[in-house]
C-alpha cells in the first residue's frame, strides 16, 4: 500500500539556506550547518528550491545540489529558475530525481509540454503559490516569488498544469507560509479534488497535528514542512510517531534506522 510522505522543503538563496514567512526570507545557515544538523535519514522526500531572486544561477545551484545529494538517500525534487530542457538536465545530472517548475508553467507552457514529453510527467512537479489579493474574496495563483498575480484561481491553474503534463503539485499558501497556523485545508482540498495527480501540501505547519490535518482533512498525498526545527534532532521521529498514532499511513519512523547493521 502506498504511504503518505513527510517532505522537508529546503530553500537556498545564493549560498545560504533561508526560512520563509509569507515569502520574506531570512538566512538560517550554510551548507555546512545544514549537513551537520539535519538528519536526512529521517525524511521521506526532499524539495530543494533555489529562491535566489536576483540573477539566479542554475549552475551554482546544481553544485549545491550535488553536494547535498551525497548525504541524502531519499528522492530530491529540485528547482527554481528552471526555464529550459538544459536547466532540467543540469539538475537531473546533479542529483535531482524530479524537477520543480513554478513561473514557467504560467509563462512558457510550451516548455512544460516539451519537458513532459522528454522526461515524462512523473519527473515534473508544479510549485504553485497561492494567496488572497487585497480587496478580493478569492484566492489566486502568483508567480515570481509571489509578486505577480496570474488572475487564475488555484483550481483553474492546477487543471491547466495537469493538462500540460505536470505529474505532481507542490501547493503553497503564501498567506499561511511561516505563520505556524496550519495548512489552508480548504485550498488543499479544492486542488486535490480538481486533479488526478498527487498533491503535496505546503505552508503553515506549526505543530505535528497540522500534518495530520493536511492528509486527513485536506486529502493531500504528502505534507511538507519548511521550518527547519521540525527536522533537527529527534523531532522528525516524534512527528512520524504522532501521525502514525493518528491512524495515518506513513513509513515507520524507525524502519530506516533498524537496517543500519546491513550496511
Amino acid at each position, binding site marked *: 500500500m502506498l504511504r503518505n510522505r513527510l517532505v522537508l522543503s529546503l530553500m537556498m538563496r545564493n549560498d545560504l539556506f533561508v526560512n520563509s514567512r509569507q515569502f520574506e526570507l531570512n538566512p538560517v545557515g550554510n551548507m555546512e550547518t545544514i549537513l551537520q544538523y539535519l538528519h536526512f535519514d529521517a525524511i521521506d522526500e526532499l524539495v530543494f528550491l533555489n529562491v535566489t531572486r536576483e540573477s539566479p544561477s542554475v549552475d551554482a545551484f546544481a553544485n549545491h545540489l550535488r553536494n547535498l545529494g551525497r548525504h541524502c538517500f531519499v528522492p530530491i525534487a529540485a528547482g527554481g529558475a528552471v526555464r529550459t530542457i538544459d536547466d532540467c538536465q543540469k539538475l537531473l545530472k546533479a542529483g535531482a530525481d524530479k524537477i520543480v517548475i513554478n513561473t514557467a508553467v504560467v509563462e512558457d507552457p510550451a516548455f512544460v509540454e516539451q519537458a513532459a514529453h*522528454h522526461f*515524462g510527467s512523473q519527473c515534473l512537479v508544479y510549485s504553485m503559490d497561492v494567496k488572497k489579493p487585497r480587496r478580493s474574496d478569492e484566492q489566486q495563483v502568483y508567480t515570481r516569488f509571489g509578486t505577480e498575480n496570474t488572475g487564475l484561481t488555484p483550481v483553474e491553474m492546477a487543471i491547466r498544469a495537469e493538462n500540460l503534463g505536470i505529474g505532481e503539485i507542490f501547493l503553497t499558501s503564501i498567506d499561511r507560509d511561516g505563520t505556524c497556523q496550519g495548512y489552508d485545508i480548504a485550498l488543499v482540498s479544492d486542488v486535490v479534488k480538481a486533479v488526478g495527480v498527487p498533491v503535496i501540501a505546503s505552508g503553515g505547519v506549526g505543530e505535528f497535528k497540522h500534518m495530520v490535518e493536511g492528509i486527513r482533512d485536506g486529502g493531500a498525498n504528502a505534507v511538507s514542512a519548511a521550518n527547519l526545527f521540525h527536522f533537527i534532532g529527534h523531532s522528525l521521529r516524534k512527528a512520524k510517531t504522532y501521525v502514525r498514532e493518528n491512524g495515518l499511513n506513513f513509513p515507520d519512523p524507525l524502519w530506516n534506522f533498524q537496517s543500519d547493521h546491513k550496511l
Partner: protein
Amino acid sequence: MIAIIDYDMGNTQSVTNALDHIGFENEITRDPDRIANSEKIILPGVGAFGTAMERLQSYGLIGLLKDAQRSGKHILGICLGMQLLGTKSNEHGEHTGLGFIQGDVKKLEPDDSALKLPHIGWNQTALNQESPIFADLPDTGDFYYVHNYSLHCSEHNVIATCQYGGMIVAAVAEDNVYGAQFHPEKSQDTGLSVLKNFCQL
C-alpha cells in the same frame, strides 16, 4: 568497477552517490571500452521509453548492452531502465526494448479511481527473499516509486511486487539481468542494501 550508463536520460548522480556511500567503485560512462571492461552495469533512467531507446541507439550502446547480457555480466535496470529490459512499450507509440525480459510496458491503470497518477511515493513491497539481491532483507520493505508505466511479464521473472489499485511488478530477474521499478538509490538503507547485494553478486 561498476559502469553507470550515461545516455542523458537518468539520475546518474543519485546512483553514483549511493554506490560511493556503500563503497563500490563506479563510473558514469558511455565509453565502449569502459563499459566492456566493467564488472557490472547499472542502467538508470528517467523519461520516456522511445526517447531513451533512441539515445541508447545514437550512443551505440544497444549492442554493448546486448553483448554484456550474453556474456553473463550482471546488469541492473532501474525505473525506466528496468522497463527498457522488456520487449516493447506503448508509451507514446510502440517502441522496441532491449528484450532481455519477455514482457510489455503499459500505462498504469489502478482499479480505484481515487488513486492518483503518477504512482509517486513509498510503497510497501513484497520481496522474494530467495533472490540474491534481496538477501538478508525482510519479506516486505518500503521502496520509493515514481512512474506512470510498468512492465508486465511472466511470473517466473517476478521477484518483487507492490499494490496500487492492482499488482505492480516491482522487480524482475532473468539469469544475470535484474530490474527494479522502484529506486533503490533513493530508498534509504533498505534500498542501499539492495544495491549492495547487487554489487556483491
